[in-house]
């Protein structure tokens, strides 16, 4: 199940947010070798302070297994403020109907091996979650910066990204800027590939108890 957490409400979801920051440190510092700020084994950046919307994939026992965050491209966002070099000179992504997804991460210690043939459930949930949020608020696209490994995952998830701009090597990984379609058709394709039958975002305001 996907839970939506506003950055401003992080205090009410302290355990989940903490688990998310730990997973992000494992993924972005340890595995991708990005130059991210990690304190006490938890990765945080200034966009976490910009009140993003987090999508948390939480398992049945109340543990976070993956996450991402969304920011409008009309305000502070990573593509504009951190990775403009991935775009063609003069390109700028800014629209009320385009949001940015960043820090897409799955717990590497727990996620089943993701291959192009076997799709991780958490990946599917998160991607369906993006599309569901997008449909709810009337987005046309979601843009994102991601590494080569994710390109394969997106393709396997039937959620192909169109690349925009020029890929560059950042840290250990080739890094791309890409865009995703927000449409019912996009949701159906991802859901079918991942064997999901119903909406993934929890409508239940009573979230399961956070694991102690």
């Amino acid at each position: 199940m996907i839970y939506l957490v506003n950055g401003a409400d992080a205090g009410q979801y302290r355990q989940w947010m903490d688990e998310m920051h730990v997973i992000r440190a494992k993924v972005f510092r340890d595995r991708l070798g990005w130059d991210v700020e990690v304190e006490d084994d938890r990765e945080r950046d200034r966009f976490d302070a910009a009140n993003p919307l987090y999508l948390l994939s939480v398992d049945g026992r109340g543990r976070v297994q993956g996450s991402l965050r969304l920011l409008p491209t009309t305000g502070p966002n990573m593509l504009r403020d951190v990775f403009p070099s991935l775009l063609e000179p003069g390109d700028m992504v800014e629209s009320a109907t385009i949001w940015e997804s960043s820090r897409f991460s799955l717990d590497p210690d727990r996620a089943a091996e993701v291959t192009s043939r076997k799709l991780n459930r958490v990946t599917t949930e998160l991607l369906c979650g993006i599309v569901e949020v997008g449909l709810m608020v009337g987005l046309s696209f979601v843009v994102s910066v991601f590494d080569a490994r994710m390109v394969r995952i997106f393709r396997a998830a039937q959620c192909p990204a169109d690349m925009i701009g020029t890929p560059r090597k950042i840290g250990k990984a080739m890094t791309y800027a890409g865009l995703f379609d927000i449409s019912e058709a996009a949701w159906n394709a991802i859901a079918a590939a991942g064997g999901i039958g119903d909406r993934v975002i929890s409508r239940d305001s009573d979230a399961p108890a956070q694991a102690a």
Partner: protein
Amino acid sequence: MFFSDRPMDALFLETIEQAAQVGTKEEVYTLLQGMVAAYGLKNAAYMVVNLPHRNHLDPQIYVTYSMEWVDHYKKRNFVRCDPVLLQGFGSILPVDWGDFDLSKRPVRSLFGESREFGVGRQGITLPVRGRFGEQALLTITSDDADPEWNRKKILYMRDFQVIAYHIHRMVLRVENISEQQIHLAPREIDCLKWTAMGKTVQEVAQILGVGHRTARFYLELARHKLDAVNITHAVAKAVSLNIISGGM
């Protein structure tokens, strides 16, 4: 049913087109009042904080509420407990007034008294994040009964997501916060050019050797930069601004 293929109703187009023409503070109020009347709403309220070169404790506010309500709100110091502000500024999702927790007394008083002042029984608030780090909220309210409102709300959340941003840009203009000159990237100009020549998105994509999704994406970026309501409007504006030539 996604944005660019959605048949957009005339109201939506008119509202955005009118917002692009507004030049004075008085006209901002006129626009909000016109929008409220046209959509059959009760009220509309726009508020922005953190504008560059402004004291952020001094928000700019444009509302169609009665002066009596604005005075009463200030006198009762509702700003301290108003969930519209607390949740709106902490969220990027639309805030539905129906979701507020009314168990706390000050919040219950706020909404009880707001009804007496004709603020509206229902409301949604659309957060806007701006380029300079400013944050704005556009609220629309209604006196519709629940079933009717719940039906409209779904559509309003999507349409007003876009309208809110156009209203925000309108206010920035009126408040003399410099908007950058329109500068289209080469790819955006290419897409507009071929569209102006009657090519479909698929054809434009083929000509430029990009995916149709990418072509739509660049057209959407151009639309946004030109403050246009749709691609046709964007082409017309690009021609009138001499960004692309009309006859080729």
